[in-house]
């Protein structure tokens, strides 16, 4: 039997507004508990919400980037349930009339192919606070949870896809695409480790060719790209095993345990969910004019797809390179600075995806905090193209730059790594090597003409060794050939 996995994702993205969705409290991450929870966020009696214009602008930008319909009239509703991190006892969200309607994006897969994924809708809503379970409280011992409401009321967009993905890899590609769109737009930092972007995956399986969708399980709150992939793989396998053993999948919410690499049922959350949505009477319908939407559209930055196409045409990059370099706006910007300043886009791409990526990976740094700036890397590439140093030496210089020894010129100067291109000095080294290698010279002389170029390698190696790698290879080749041929 051949199985097909069907995946839909619900992605929550925290918007990078200064203040909350319905109050003037700060959204800054990492403040002391409850210092950024104002009367509205705490649901003090008599307080009322007033929505943040910037959150709407962000949501509209997102909708436009997703080629989606914009809800020119959107309505907030109340989703009722009790939980200590939800002060009002309801979440203010959108249901029937969301700010972003159906849309579609293209995802790029590893094998170079592309695929469309449909957006069901995206809506604005408020985040909840946090429950802290680990702390032991002096006055009350354990058995208590602490509630921090700093995050309560932070604006989110919840992005709901259609069940269009057919593998964990497609789901990850979609998630990365969403990540790249929101960070390009500057509407979120997209930081999954801080919870700025969170993902729920609806996973079901069906026999290939079957049209009806299987029963789905929802995996909640997956907090990294890697875990999304692993969670989907293990959940799909669990469902397939279950069905093949004669069982059936139950519609439920599950949690991914990354330590055990398994999903497990969250039964406690299943008790009698009846959210009793109804339009929030404290808020009026939000109407956005055509002008407003068009103004936002006219100010959109260049988006990943457009950049992906332009990098291929303008810099002659391969589709793969263009995709790699455009996934993150900061990487694209970095690359483009290096390419422009050095005038060598191909070298720039190789360096950014090669040495730089390795460095950042090793140091676990985002490109924004790269120890080597784009300007510095462009300076290094310039020294390669003007033959001041070889590519091999350049790697050494790059490491020194990463260690904070200054820009390329300073490192080359300080370490004396400048390529030797002085004819006299190279002639001297060639002469010395020829004099010290009579047997190899004899072999060269006797050899057939066609084999001679290959035999030059020995001499070149010796000369490079003598010059500590700094002699200009083209000049060595030229002078060596002249001198050896003179001995024939």
């Amino acid at each position: 039997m051949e199985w097909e996995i069907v995946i839909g994702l619900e992605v929550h993205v925290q918007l990078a507004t200064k203040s909350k969705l319905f109050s003037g409290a700060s959204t800054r991450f990492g403040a002391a508990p409850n210092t950024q929870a104002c009367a509205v966020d705490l649901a003090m009696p008599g307080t009322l919400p007033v929505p943040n214009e910037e959150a709407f602008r962000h949501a509209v930008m997102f909708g436009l980037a997703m080629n989606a319909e914009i809800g020119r009239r959107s309505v907030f509703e109340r989703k009722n349930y009790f939980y200590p991190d939800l002060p009002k006892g309801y979440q203010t969200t959108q249901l029937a009339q969301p700010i972003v309607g159906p849309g579609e994006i293209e995802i790029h897969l590893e094998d170079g192919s592309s695929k469309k994924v449909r957006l069901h809708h995206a809506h604005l809503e408020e985040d909840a606070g946090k429950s802290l379970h680990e702390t032991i409280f002096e006055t009350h011992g354990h058995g208590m949870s602490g509630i921090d409401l700093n995050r309560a009321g932070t604006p989110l967009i919840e992005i709901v896809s259609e069940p269009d993905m057919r593998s964990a890899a497609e789901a990850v590609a979609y998630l990365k695409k969403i990540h790249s769109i929101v960070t390009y737009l500057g509407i979120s930092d997209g930081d999954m480790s801080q919870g700025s972007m969170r993902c729920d995956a609806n996973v079901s399986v069906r026999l290939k060719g079957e049209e009806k969708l299987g029963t789905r399980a929802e995996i909640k709150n997956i907090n990294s790209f890697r875990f999304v992939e692993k969670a989907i793989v293990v959940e799909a396998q669990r469902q397939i095993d279950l069905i093949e053993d004669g069982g059936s999948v139950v519609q439920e919410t599950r949690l991914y345990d990354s330590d055990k690499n398994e999903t497990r049922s969250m039964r406690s959350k299943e008790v009698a969910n009846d959210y009793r949505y109804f339009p929030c009477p404290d808020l009026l319908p939000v109407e956005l004019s055509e002008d407003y939407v068009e103004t936002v559209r006219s100010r959109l930055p260049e988006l990943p797809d457009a950049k992906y196409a332009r990098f291929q045409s303008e810099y002659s990059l391969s589709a793969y390179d263009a995709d790699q370099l455009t996934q993150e706006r900061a990487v694209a910007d970095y690359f483009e600075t290096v390419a422009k300043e050095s005038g060598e886009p191909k070298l720039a791409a190789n360096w950014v995806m090669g040495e730089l990526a390795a460095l950042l990976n090793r140091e676990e740094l985002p490109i924004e905090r790269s120890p080597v700036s784009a300007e510095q890397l462009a300076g290094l590439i310039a020294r390669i193209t003007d033959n001041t140093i070889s590519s091999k030496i350049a790697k050494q210089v790059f490491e020194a730059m990463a260690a904070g020894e200054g820009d390329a010129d300073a490192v080359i100067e300080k370490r004396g790594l400048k390529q030797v291109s002085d004819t006299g000095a190279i002639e001297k080294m060639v002469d010395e090597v020829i004099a010290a290698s009579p047997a190899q010279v004899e072999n060269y002389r006797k050899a057939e003409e066609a084999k001679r170029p290959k035999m030059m390698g020995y001499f070149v190696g010796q000369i490079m060794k003598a010059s500590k790698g700094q002699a200009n290879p083209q000049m060595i080749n030229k002078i060596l050939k002249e001198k050896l041929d003179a001995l024939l």
Partner: protein
Amino acid sequence: MHQLTIAEIIRGLRDRQFSSVEITGHLLGRIEQLDGNYNSFITVTPEQALQQAAAADERLTAGGAPALCGVPLAHKDIFCTEGVRTSCGSKMLDNFTPPYDATVVENFNNAGAVTLGKTNMDEFAMGSSNETSYYGPVKNPWNTNCVPGGSSGGSAAAVAAQLAPGATATDTGGSIRQPAALTNTTGLKPTYGRVSRWGMIAFASSLDQGGPIARNAEDAAYLLSAMAGHDPKDSTSLYRPVPDYTAGLNGDIAGLRIGVPAEYFSDDLNPQVAARVQDALKEYEKLGAQLVEVSLPHTHLAVPAYYVIAPAEASANLSRFDGVRYGHRCEDPRDLRDLYMRSRGEGFGEEVQRRILVGTYALSAGYYDAYYNKAQQVRRLIKQDFVQAFEKVDVIMGPTTPSPAFALGEKKADPVAMYLEDIYTIAANLAGLPGMSLPCGLVNNLPVGLQIIGNYLDEARMLNVAHRYQQVTDWHKASAA
């Protein structure tokens, strides 16, 4: 001194006939002496009141003080007052002292008005008799065996008993107008959105509206002028200029077209109440107004629609009272669920619990369309009735309540009978229209209220219409005391 109206106090303070400290002290003394009979206050704030009065006297001496500077008032205990316990008539908030003021309170404070204390009310404004208060029922100063109406029964009784010349109140289905009618006071529920709801503890957000209860229309005009206006903290407050409501009080009303809906004079109406209302309409004819028959055919559906919409909104509005951040918390909760269940079971009274359960039912899966959605559709039909009527008339008049004040305990055990107290007032809340009640006679020495329903934002005209009536009649001057 306690017999003075707000207009008279304003003049007296400026003419140096008395100081704010003097009249404030006098009223505090009266409250101390008499309120045991009425239970109209939950909290009295003598020290703060005298400090505010002293500060007001200084402002008055300096000159240029706002009209209400130095005027002592009472606030319904639904309005948050910084540093003063705000209970909303509930055990749930018995220990709640907000660190912020309602916008309405802030407006009065800025105007230099003096707060005597916080008035009793039905718990979370849910009731029409003031018997659901955690602090015990309020008694009608006209007959202490009778209810004063509700939910703003404390405010109405305090004004009727001359413990305060005026008070703030709120009206979700008649909670200003019905107690005003039952206590011979003048009460006005403004157009929805005219007065900020910030800091006014929510019952049903799309229906709640703050307004004044006073001894006459002129005083109500002074109070409304201070209360009304756009508030950036309330998304539903209207962004419209506020007229000086006292300016047009004396305008001629000859030619005024008064709509009289047949539906407001049905069999439910006590015939003696009907007679008093008819007398008032005749008085208006003498003033040159013309009576026009209008029809509000969906009137009978107002109470059913209201008892879906208001409980539905309340069921969510009252979820915040969960024993976590403020308010009542049960002893030694076993677990989280127990904390919620018992804190809310203990903190809310029977009527509040009932409405939360009704609202929960109306919104729950499978019932939403039949109840909540249906009620919101009927609400539009009710509004359309009024919109059509106001094409032909300037104001609509009828009784405020079907009968005069009833005995304490009479309807307490029968919620539906209690709900029908508001058959004539609820429609204005559903439609968002301004409504008013003013004294128009007595039946068995109990007051009867004439209701005026105005068009949107037409409060100035309503006050003018009421004031002209009060210039040619004395019903509003009749005193319980």
